[in-house]
Structures are given as structure tokens and as C-alpha cells.
């Protein structure tokens, strides 16, 4: 790393370097998205020069940045990429899956280089870069030979052809290859208005075709005007063009082909080429305006910014904006496992036949991209965002949030003061004034809190884009055809959660491709489409965001899972017999669990499902699996929408104050000791005819019970997924919106607390991690672990200094 330090690094401060990292990261992310769009277009057998240009620009900017910061590895890679991209956009090199692979590989390497530069990883991927550079070098040498130019078939002035730039010639060839007619337009412009007039003409011509070039004819002009000859490639008829461009100043004529036929075969009807088959109705017809290829079977990705993604699963789309609405009428392909009878091939067959092809075959279908807005709309959008947004360090937002938290405490004190003043009859006027001010303050504070929260929110698409790359890469490595169908990429969630989510999602998708989707032959045998489908669905549900990773693969075999778990000594066969089906699926979350004899290349890497689960619960989320043999597997992650502000129920037990997130509280009822029964060392109570396991919070935390607690106690019933647990507490204090703060690293291993918050008058209350506690209590082993721990803890807390400290407080 040191040798890449270069000259500039020392001079530019840390702040500048941070800027470099985030800017480079943005560019790399954008590059990945552009490449996915290129991939989608090239599956349709086309090349969009504008997209390639975007990629080129991104690489070029990266090169400049890297040079500035002395990141020689990055600038070297960029330099080589520029050459290849240049060849691609000039048509000297054909876009092929192999070339695309190299480009995608480059994106991965960029990310690695950046991580190394940043010091996140010790090693630079120098060797990998070298290998890639070599491969790129070979590619750029394997350029397409010249060949006989189809251009020669047209009666074009050799003089004109001679002055075409390389790029213009390439565009001309491409258009001819696509069977587009050529038109020659002669226009006279006044010299003083030529710029605007030319722009206007271009704007009018754009919906109908592509302007290849314009050159002065040298005729017909005088001192004040000039005549241009414009070469336009268009599928429109002469009449249409005349109508569009018409006016006295333009003369249009079609360029004839040598040897007779004036036009290539007629243009394909817009709808005939529709790649969505019976979904045609769901996809609005593409209007030609934004495309330079109005005639071709129009793949929808050129306007991906507006076009709906095909929604496959039969749920009501979460948002109306980007999702096709007709899809909710489609039968769920395999979403509702309950109605599907088990694994008989004929049933599978029927179901598969009855569902519309989730995604048209890969060759024709530009399956992507949700965020990979490759079209004009997308570019405009990204341009806007560059000029109107600022990058903010999330720590700064945390700082602001802390200040807002402080202000919330001031607000509480203010309310108390206001109440106090109101009690004094001599100060009524003052009291009213204070009360009004307090209300204004409260309102503004709430707005400010919301504002900051909003800033922290980012669309999930950020994480999904990366996953699309992974899917592409892994499915190629495994020679399995897989389509990723994304819905709800615009669902917003706390930035920190998005960051933390990438790894678990990536692992789940790897698993889905590796273990879930069957090999092609197997899929064919059972009558499934050879192309597997992985759906990534996100939607908001109250204060939570739900993310589903669903595949139409082989499903999970509960018997295999049990065997494997028993073999690994995770539980006994007798215990396994008692498990409900969903509990059996839950075994895959146990540490050390795997169904494979040996880890495969894919699943051997990275984290196991236990780590996925740990990571998700660390963010206060839960994960569930449902699976049906032969039909598919669905993993559902439910996450809080933000980590920052939550509504909590403040409770007291054993003289301590705790906060329980309301999102997981179902209700709170009065506790009656007489309702309690013991079942196998566990306490349960009767909740309206249902058995509710309960847990006394003081016991769970190893605190001394409050001797004076003779009054009514309460049970706070927490629900996590479909599991319920009642926490017995001494008092309910009330409901409050709090700013939750993470406990420091030295407390990170302490289970059961999601963080802490300030209640006012300097007091701090711990926020319970309900999901973890429910899991711990109901899974049983947690309690055993606790027995040992709580004895020591109790001792430490009952004597010693803390009692005195509290007394002073």
C-alpha cells in the first residue's frame, strides 16, 4: 500500500481523502449500475452507445480521481479500461458476455482497491488487477476486422463518407445493420441563429431517429447563411419525417440503396416485439420520444426510470409508482404454500403452467434493472442529484440527533415548569405565554426530529444494485440461469441498516442460487422453466420494512435438515421429533449447521446463516423461513425502519427503569399471581384462554426484587413474529418517543439490550432488545446460561457502590 502512496497523499488532508473515498465509491456504484444496464441491453443483441459513454465517463473520472490521490493501481486499471471502452463505443470491439464479465470484474476490483486504500483490508488486489489488465489487453487486440462495409450499399457521397469520424461511421454502420433507412436533409441556416436553429432541428428529429452527422455543403449559402447536409437514420417514412421536420427550410430525401430496393423490410410493429408476451397489457407502450431507436423491438429498459418492473409474486404491489398493477391478478407462483399440495410432479407442473412466465427468458428479456436506470430519464435524474445533494457523514447526523435528544429533555423540563407556573394564580398571563411557547417548541422539535430522520433514510435500491451484480456473477459461475426480479427498491430505510444489510442479503442470495435453484436439467425434468427466478421484494409495513428473498428452487427438505442437525449433535433425534415444521427450518440458523457434506465454493465463503441471523437481530430485526419441497423457499426479514427514533413503553422493575419498544408490544395487562402456572420449570399464565409464557424481568436480569412492590404488577405482552412472551414488571410509567443510542463497544457482547436512551433529568434507561430476550427465554438454553451468570451479577449489584450512587441521584 505504501508504494501507492504517491506524492499527493500526504498533502491532502484526511477530509479530502474521505471525499475521495465517498466520491469514488459513488462512481463505482454508478458504474456497476450502468454495466447492468449494458448487460440488459446487450441481451437484446444491441449496444446503446450512450450507456457505453456513461461507463466511459465514469471510468475516466475515476482515473482522474485516482491520479490525484496517488492510487496508482486504480488509475492503471482505469487507463486500460478506457481503451477497451473506447473500442467498444467506436464499434472496433463487439460487446460480448466475455467482455462484460471483464468489466464487471473490474467493478469488483475497484471496490477492493478502494477498501485497501482505505485500510479496511490489509492487502491490495494487485495480482488480480494484473490478471485483469492482461485479459483486457487481449480483448482489445482481438478487435473486429474491417470487413466489407454495408455502408457501401447506399448511394452516399464518398466525400461525405470520407469525413465521417470514426464514431459517426460506427453509428452509421450500426443503424444500417438494424435495417434503418437513411435520409439526407438539406437545411439552410442563418449564421447568427444557427446554434438555436440546429438545436431545434435536432430536437424535432430525435423522436424519429438518430442524426449521424451534419456537414456544410458549401452550396446555396450566402454571406449570412450556410447550408448543411444532415444524415439522419430513421425508421419513419419520408412523409412522417417531412411532417415532423417540415417547413420551408428543410428538404428531405431518402438515400437510395444501390441496386433497387429502397427500403429494408418494414419496421416491426411496436407491440410485436414486446418481450413480455401475455403481459403486454401490463407494460405501457414505449413512446419513441426518448429513444434514438424508435423502430426496433423496444426493450423497456431504455426508459427504466418510468417503466414498471414485472412483478412476479402475487402480492398487492407496495407502491403504485413503479410497479405494474395488473400483476396482482396473477396467481401467486409459489407464494402461498398452504394451497399447494405436496410435491407431486403433476401438481408442480400445473402450478408452473398456470403461472405466467415470471420473467421472460434471459436472452430476450432485459430483466433488470430497478435502479439501473440506463435510459434518458435516469440520466437526467442522476444529473439533478449531483447538483442538488450534499454528502453528509452519518456521524454528523448522529451528532445532530443527539442535540435533538438533548432538546427533547429541555422540552420535558419546560413542560414541568409550565405546569408549575400555571398553579400560581398570580402568574396566569405568564403561564399562558409559557405554555404557548412550549407548544411551539414541541412542534418545531418534532419536525426537526422527523427532518433529520428523513435525511438518514436511503432507498434499499442501494443494496439491491450490488446484489444484482452478485446474482449475475454467481449464476454464471454455476452455469445456472437465474433472473433477479426486484420490487420495492425505492422502499426507504435507515442508511446504517442498508449498510449492515448487504452482507446478510448477499449470503442469502448465494444460498438461494447454490442450494435453492436446481440445475437446468433437473428443472426441465420437473417441468419448471429452465431459468430460475429469485425475487427480492421490499415493502414497508408500519414502522417496519419487510424484505423477502424468494426462490423457485427445490425447497428445503426437513428430513435432511433434521438428519444433519442430529449428526452434528445439535439436538437429539427425540427432540427433533417434537419440532414443528417451522422450527425444523429454524435449525439452519444454529451455529455450525450445514446440510452440505463439505462447503461448496459458494457457501463455503462468507458467513453462515447463524451469522446472518445474528447480524439481522443486531439491527432489531427478525428472519423467518418458509419453504415447500419442490416449489421454493422464502426468507422474510423484518427490520425496524430506523434505528434512531422509536416509540417505547417505559416500565419499572426492581427499582430500575427500562424501555420496551412499542413495535413489539402487543398489550399490557394487570398481572395476577393467581393466574400463574408452572409448566416444566417455566411460568405461564392464562391470557384469555391462551397459554402465555411469562418471565419476571427482575429475575431475567438478576436483580433483587423490589421488596416494597406490593401494589399491582403488570404483564407487558411482547410479540415477535408468532412467538409471544409476557414480561412481568412492577410499574408502567408511560409511552414516549425516544432517541435510541447504541451502547459502547465494551458492552456490545451483553445480550438483551438494543441500546439506551435519556429520559430527562440526566437519567439513562436501557432499551430492551425484545427479539433477543424472547428468543433467549423461549429457546430455554438461554435461561440455563443465565442461572450461572445471574448469581454473580446479583451479588455485585446488591452490595457495593451502586446503591449509594442511586441514592445520590
Amino acid at each position, binding site marked *: 500500500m505504501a508504494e501507492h502512496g504517491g506524492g499527493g497523499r500526504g498533502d491532502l488532508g484526511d477530509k479530502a481523502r474521505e471525499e475521495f473515498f465517498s466520491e469514488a465509491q459513488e462512481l463505482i456504484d454508478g458504474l456497476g449500475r450502468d454495466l447492468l444496464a449494458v448487460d440488459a441491453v446487450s441481451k437484446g443483441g444491441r449496444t446503446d452507445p450512450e450507456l457505453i459513454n456513461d461507463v466511459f465517463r465514469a471510468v475516466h473520472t475515476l482515473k482522474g480521481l485516482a491520479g490525484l490521490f496517488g492510487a496508482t493501481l486504480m488509475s492503471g486499471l482505469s487507463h486500460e479500461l478506457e481503451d477497451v471502452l473506447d473500442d467498444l463505443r467506436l464499434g472496433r470491439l463487439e460487446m460480448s458476455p466475455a467482455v462484460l464479465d471483464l468489466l464487471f470484474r473490474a467493478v469488483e476490483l475497484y471496490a477492493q482497491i478502494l477498501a485497501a486504500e482505505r485500510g479496511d483490508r490489509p492487502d491490495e488486489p494487485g495480482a488480480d488487477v494484473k490478471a485483469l489488465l492482461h485479459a483486457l489487453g487481449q480483448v482489445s487486440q482481438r478487435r473486429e476486422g474491417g470487413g466489407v462495409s454495408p455502408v457501401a450499399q447506399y448511394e452516399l457521397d464518398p466525400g461525405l463518407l470520407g469525413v465521417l469520424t470514426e464514431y459517426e461511421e460506427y453509428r452509421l454502420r450500426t443503424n444500417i445493420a438494424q435495417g434503418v433507412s437513411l435520409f439526407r436533409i438539406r437545411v439552410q441556416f442563418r449564421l447568427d441563429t444557427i446554434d438555436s436553429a440546429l438545436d431545434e432541428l435536432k430536437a424535432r428529429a430525435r423522436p424519429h431517429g438518430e442524426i449521424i452527422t451534419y456537414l456544410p455543403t458549401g452550396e446555396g449559402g450566402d454571406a449570412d447563411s450556410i447550408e448543411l447536409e444532415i444524415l439522419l437514420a430513421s425508421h419513419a417514412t419520408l412523409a412522417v419525417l417531412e411532417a415532423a421536420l417540415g417547413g420551408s427550410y428543410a428538404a428531405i430525401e431518402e438515400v437510395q440503396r444501390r441496386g433497387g430496393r429502397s427500403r429494408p423490410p418494414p419496421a416491426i410493429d411496436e407491440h410485436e416485439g414486446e418481450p413480455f408476451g401475455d403481459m403486454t397489457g401490463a407494460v405501457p407502450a414505449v413512446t419513441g420520444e426518448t429513444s434514438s431507436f424508435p423502430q426496433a423491438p423496444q426493450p423497456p429498459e431504455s426508459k427504466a426510470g418510468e417503466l414498471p418492473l414485472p412483478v412476479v409474486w402475487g402480492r398487492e404491489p407496495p407502491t403504485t409508482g413503479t410497479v405494474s398493477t395488473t400483476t396482482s391478478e396473477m396467481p401467486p407462483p409459489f407464494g402461498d404454500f398452504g394451497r399447494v399440495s405436496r410435491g407431486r410432479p403433476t401438481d408442480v407442473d400445473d402450478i408452473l403452467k398456470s403461472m405466467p412466465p415470471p420473467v421472460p427468458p434471459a436472452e430476450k428479456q432485459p430483466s433488470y434493472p430497478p435502479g439501473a436506470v440506463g435510459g434518458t430519464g435516469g440520466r437526467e435524474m442522476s444529473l439533478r442529484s449531483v447538483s442538488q445533494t450534499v454528502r453528509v457523514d452519518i456521524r454528523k447526523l448522529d451528532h445532530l440527533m443527539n442535540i435533538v435528544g438533548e432538546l427533547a429533555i429541555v422540552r420535558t423540563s419546560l413542560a414541568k415548569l409550565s405546569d408549575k407556573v400555571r398553579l400560581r394564580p398570580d402568574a396566569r398571563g405568564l403561564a399562558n405565554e409559557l405554555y404557548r411557547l412550549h407548544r411551539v417548541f414541541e412542534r418545531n422539535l418534532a419536525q426537526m426530529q422527523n427532518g433529520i430522520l428523513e435525511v438518514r433514510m436511503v432507498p434499499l435500491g442501494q443494496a439491491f444494485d450490488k446484489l444484482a451484480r452478485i446474482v449475475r456473477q454467481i449464476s454464471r459461475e454455476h452455469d445456472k440461469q437465474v433472473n433477479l426480479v426486484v420490487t420495492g427498491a425505492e422502499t426507504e430505510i435507515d442508511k446504517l441498516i442498508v449498510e449492515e444489510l448487504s452482507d446478510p442479503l448477499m449470503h442469502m442470495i448465494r444460498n438461494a442460487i447454490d442450494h435453492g435453484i436446481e440445475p437446468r436439467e433437473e428443472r426441465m425434468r420437473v417441468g419448471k422453466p429452465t431459468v430460475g427466478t429469485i425475487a427480492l421484494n421490499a415493502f414497508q409495513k408500519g414502522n417496519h420494512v419487510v424484505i423477502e428473498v424468494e426462490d423457485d428452487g427445490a425447497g428445503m427438505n426437513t428430513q435432511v435438515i433434521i438428519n444433519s442437525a442430529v449428526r452434528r449433535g445439535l439436538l437429539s433425534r427425540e427432540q427433533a421429533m417434537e419440532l414443528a415444521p417451522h422450527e425444523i427450518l429454524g435449525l439452519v440458523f444454529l451455529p455450525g449447521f450445514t446440510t452440505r457434506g463439505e462447503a461448496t465454493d459458494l457457501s463455503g465463503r462468507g458467513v453462515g446463516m447463524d451469522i446472518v441471523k445474528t447480524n439481522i437481530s443486531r439491527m432489531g430485526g427478525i428472519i423467518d423461513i418458509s419453504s415447500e419441497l419442490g416449489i421454493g423457499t422464502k426468507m422474510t426479514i423484518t427490520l425496524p425502519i430506523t434505528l434512531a427514533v422509536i416509540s417505547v413503553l417505559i416500565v419499572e422493575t426492581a427499582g*430500575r427503569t427500562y424501555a420496551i419498544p412499542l413495535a413489539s408490544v402487543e398489550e399490557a395487562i394487570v398481572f395476577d399471581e393467581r393466574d400463574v402456572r408452572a409448566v416444566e420449570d417455566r411460568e405461564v399464565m392464562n391470557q384469555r384462554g391462551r397459554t402465555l409464557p411469562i418471565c419476571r424481568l427482575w429475575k431475567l436480569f438478576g436483580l433483587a426484587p423490589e421488596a416494597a412492590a406490593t401494589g399491582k404488577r403488570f404483564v407487558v405482552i411482547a410479540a415477535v413474529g408468532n412467538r409471544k412472551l409476557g414480561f412481568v414488571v412492577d410499574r408502567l410509567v408511560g409511552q414516549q418517543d425516544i432517541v435510541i443510542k447504541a451502547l459502547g463497544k465494551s458492552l456490545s457482547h451483553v445480550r438483551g439490550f438494543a441500546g439506551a436512551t435519556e429520559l430527562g433529568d*440526566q437519567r439513562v434507561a*436501557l432499551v430492551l432488545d425484545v427479539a433477543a430476550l424472547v428468543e433467549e427465554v423461549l429457546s430455554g438454553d438461554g435461561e440455563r446460561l443465565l442461572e450461572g451468570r445471574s448469581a454473580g451479577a446479583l451479588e455485585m449489584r446488591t452490595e457495593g*457502590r451502586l446503591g449509594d*450512587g442511586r441514592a445520590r441521584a
Partner: protein
Amino acid sequence: MAALVRRRAEQRALRRAADGQRTEYLAFSLAGEIYAVEIHSIGEILKPPPITEVPRAEPSIIGVVSVRGRLVTVIDLRKRFGVKDAPIGHLTRILLVDKGDEKLGLLVDEVLQVYRLTENEIEPANVLGGDQPAHILGIGRPKEGTGRPDFGSLLVLLDLRPILDG
């Protein structure tokens, strides 16, 4: 005023030149001993706010406090050093230190004063015998008046890193 400040600065410079490099140490008492840490490692000295205990945390972590909106984990140095507990008194203080990835508070019995020690006022830790714990840097013997003759003038100089990591 300005002249006064300048004169003091000159005196300090003169003294430093005479004595060689001086380092400032903050001395505090804990279970009858005097410890001292380099003053630059101390961010702040606080009167203990209400401390919220964290169930299941390791015993030497006494709890968390809020310092101007920031959560700080407080370590009881008595417990870290394995000496007997004592109640929090009116002299008890929390020393805020930065551990890099988080802020920690160290609970001490009483903050005494700042000592400015030269190299020749510091003895290596091995004067106390062979195996000294990693957190003892050495023994400070300030030659200047301590103002607290009853404590003698023997300071156990602490290296905070092993304490914070432990």
C-alpha cells in the same frame, strides 16, 4: 494582563529548559493508593451523574451515564484492580477517556492534583519487583512540593491501554 501572561510563559519555558522535558500527570486516589495518568489521556473530569447499571455486563462495568447526550460506559477501577468496593462519595469522580472507538469513564475515589514530572523523577516499574502488571508504567517521585505531605510522594503511573482493553 498580557505582560503577566507573557512573564509566566517565560518562567515556564525557563523551568522546562532547566529541568528537561516535563510531562503532566493527573493524580487520583483509589483505595488508599495514589495513581497518576498522563493528563492528555483524560478528556474531562466529571462528578458522577446517576449511573444506570447494565444487567449481565461484566462486573467491573458499573453502568452507563449520559455525558451531554453521549452514552459513556463507566468502569469501576476498584473492581478492575480487584480491590475492595467502596460507596460513591462526594469526592468520587469519573475520568473521561477516549478508547478510540468509544468514550469510557473511569470511576476513582478522588482527584488530587497535577504533577509535572521530568524523566529523572520517574522510576521504572521493576523497582517494585519482577512481574508487574502491564498497566503499571513506573513510579513517580515528584521532587517539587506536593502540597499533600500526608500522601508522601509516591505515584503509581498508569498506562491506560491495558486497563481499557481488559
